[in-house]
């Protein structure tokens, strides 16, 4: 049986057992990962990991009452149990007068580059050699510790609903990275580089090169004073900040409940007029690109901010129906979780520069932040430790800056956007190159 067959069976059974409406999300995930560590005093470790995970989730509607359940037992018995549990729960739960029905079939979006067939037979042997190569090179170069990993993932998804949605698609994921620690004269410096993509392509050598550059740059420590700084955010740092400070704020659930600082601000200027943010569910090769969202609604592109003005929030079928709008195709779901709203590929655009670092007279390059999850999601107030961070003077990295904190609100930060440039990469949902903000408060 394919994953879609499981979902179809759930729909058929639920309708027979008395559900008014039903949809089901089934998935099969497989992954193969390799990892290795070398440490200068002689410790080394190697591991290989395989994961196979199958499961199905069901959402049933009985008289305007909606409920969910899930299971990993996919035999007939398991399926009947999960369907009955969901129906019993829907009967026991209160009605939701605002529920307008599950989405109707609207076809699928033609998307490219989300599945690479080579994932079925990944180059594990070559991966082992590359990891060992990275580790050996690290030890030759006298680094303190080196860690490298490579992971191949494949996911098959099947979504079926009583309204007539039947969709099946496959995705591939390749993640790889190098994490180095060097030490010189009592100063430790961390250099890391990661790559995440859909294509089966080994990039550990490139990761190694970049990680080495950062770990070497950090061996010199520079002291700075607190105050207003020009900050260049690497996507590694901006992605977690945006996840807690921005994506929650454009989630229509939070907006409708008044739990977002962007509630009621459609049409208002909320960011620098150079900034444009688009959620591109249909982006070619995007890490979160799919033909449909978690409830089978075709994905699309939604302009969130253009010329600094807030244009849209992100919706699923439930929140959009409340405002008599169409869903933006941002329902996210796995078999264990209910439908929620999340960005897909959030693309940042604005004033472009080929090499943004060269244009910085004096500023900080922030490669990572710690504590993004302590951001106040309702107000967008954040106060994070910038780590690793580097001082830039006259376009060059001077050395590492330790122990500084960046604070403010996301509302302010969006207005401080200046320009961006360099290689565009994706971290989580964020698709961006280096992004420059002016006048950000730094404490030391």
């Amino acid at each position: 049986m394919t994953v879609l067959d499981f979902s179809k069976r759930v729909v058929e059974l639920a309708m027979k057992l008395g559900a008014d409406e039903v949809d089901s999300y089934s998935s099969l995930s497989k992954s193969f990962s390799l990892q290795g560590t070398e440490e200068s005093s002689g410790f080394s470790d190697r591991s290989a990991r395989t994961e196979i995970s199958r499961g199905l989730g069901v959402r049933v509607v009985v008289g305007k009452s909606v409920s969910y359940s899930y299971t990993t037992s996919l035999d007939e018995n398991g399926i009947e149990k999960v369907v009955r549990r969901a129906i019993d729960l829907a009967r026991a739960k209160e009605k939701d007068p605002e529920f307008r029905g599950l989405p109707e079939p609207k076809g699928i979006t033609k998307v490219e580059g989300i599945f690479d067939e080579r994932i079925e037979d990944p180059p594990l042997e070559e991966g082992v050699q590359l990891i060992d190569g990275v580790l050996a090179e690290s030890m030759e170069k006298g680094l303190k510790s080196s860690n490298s990993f490579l992971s191949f993932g494949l996911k098959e998804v099947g979504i079926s609903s009583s309204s007539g949605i039947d969709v099946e698609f496959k995705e591939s994921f390749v993640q790889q990275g190098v994490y180095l620690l060097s030490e010189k004269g009592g100063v430790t410096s961390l250099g890391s580089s990661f790559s995440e993509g859909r294509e089966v392509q080994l990039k550990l050598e490139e990761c190694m090169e970049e990680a080495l550059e950062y770990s070497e740059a950090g061996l010199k420590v520079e002291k700075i004073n607190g105050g207003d700084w020009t900050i260049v955010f690497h996507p590694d740092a901006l992605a977690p900040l945006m996840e807690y400070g921005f994506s929650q704020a454009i989630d229509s659930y939070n907006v409708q409940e008044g739990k977002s600082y962007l509630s009621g601000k459609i049409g208002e200027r909320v960011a620098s007029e150079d900034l444009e943010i688009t959620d591109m569910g249909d982006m070619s090769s995007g890490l979160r690109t799919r033909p449909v969202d978690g409830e089978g609604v075709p994905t699309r592109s939604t302009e969130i901010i253009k010329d600094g003005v807030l244009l849209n929030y992100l919706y699923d079928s439930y929140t959009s129906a409340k405002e008599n709008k169409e869903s933006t195709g941002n329902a996210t779901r796995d078999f264990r979780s209910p439908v929620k709203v999340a960005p897909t590929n959030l693309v940042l655009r604005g004033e472009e520069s080929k090499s943004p670092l060269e244009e910085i007279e004096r500023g900080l390059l922030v490669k990572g932040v710690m504590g993004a999850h302590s951001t106040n999601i309702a107000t967008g107030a954040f106060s994070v430790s910038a780590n690793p961070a580097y001082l830039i003077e006259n376009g060059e990295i001077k050395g590492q800056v330790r122990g500084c904190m960046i604070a403010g609100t996301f509302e302010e930060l969006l207005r401080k956007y200046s320009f961006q440039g360099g290689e565009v990469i994706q971290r989580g949902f964020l698709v961006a190159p280096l992004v420059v903000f002016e006048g950000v408060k730094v404490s030391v």
Partner: protein
Amino acid sequence: MWLVDKGSEMDLDFLEVRYQRFSSTKIEMRDGKVFSATPGEEEGVAIRSLRNGVWGFSTTSDLDKKSLLQALKYSVKGAKSKRKKREVKLAPAPVVEDEVRIKVREELDEVPIEDKISWLRRGDEEARSVDGVKATSTYWDYKEKKVVVNSDGTFLKIENSWIFFDIWAYATKNGVMQSYRERFATLGGFESTEKIGIEERCRKAAKKALELTEAKPAPGGRFPVVIDGVLSGLLAHEAVGHATEADSVLRGLSVLKGKIGEKIGSEHVTLIDDATLGEMFGSDKYDDEGVQSKRKVLIKNGVLKSYLTNRETSGELGLPLTGNARAQDYRHPPLVRMTNTFFKPGDMDLDELLEGIKRGIYAKGGRGGQVSPAEGVFQFGAQEAYVIEKGEIGERLRDFSMSGFILETLKKVSGVSKDFDVYPSFCGKGGQWMRNTTGGPHLRIEEITVGGK
């Protein structure tokens, strides 16, 4: 068991099979409305094998015999892959045959979900009875059966269950919105909801959120701070605890490497990790390698005494086996993790800690934190903060967070109170979430960096 027998034919140095079945219900309520109520069931097996120093791990939720054999083959293939050979010295662990069953009065899977919803509603209504307050609350329960079998002969059957509750209250006043979180979690059955005092906690969250709307943004810079037990727990966990995890130490990714026996903090600093504390959220009788848990003094009066270990790191480092190998569930291999981690209380009162501080900050309640043990840098956020002026608590502040260096900060702890507070949480490491508790007394830190305006 037959998997371990099968594995014994495969020329391995070690094999471990962990079977797990769990049921779980998560309910999210948003302003009085059940946003989602999701009961679910999962079952799976984790197989870990070791040969010539290479670990193979495989996990599957497909439990027919063919799939299990396939999973075993994957794990063994991983362990036998052609890679650099090394010797792994697994610390010898007593072979255990035991059945552990948590005592509960009301089994979580026998309580109707309606009862769980109405319990959560009591809190939601209480929070929203406070002026203009909105609320998002979560009830989450989990009941598991676990079997751990290994090639040494250990055979463990464990039945456990827990509940978790969390509310975010949002208040808006004069155009300013603020939020405050209350949380409670414990091992046990549904009867444990009685000891949460849900109404009181939710009312507190609502009132605090409302009070915060009148607070001023925290200043940035370096200040002396006094932190409450919840925050000192975060410090115990983030700043120090993670760096004592021996897998990080062994990989050269902890600033505490090579520092056992050294004075790394002031005499006020005594740090303990203890998984034997009854129903406390991080407790377990055995870890996921089948090693019995215990109480460990990691730092005593400022001197580093021990690391937290699993069998591999204990063997490699020649340190006592502490029973800290924990895995989120069958999908993950065990890592070295904390359990219930806290600073030991001292003998001072809060007033004594505040005394003599000309201008500083008093911070309370945790908003989460993060650490990079390799560099020794940590950050954590507080829910509430106040200016300390001439030893007195003054004006209210918001959006407070602080960051520091582990080794510098521990030396700057200049006072510890006699009170004690704990906070349950889920800690993330290596892509796995783990239940634990953090706690401690009030602490005074002479100087630390505060992020702010």
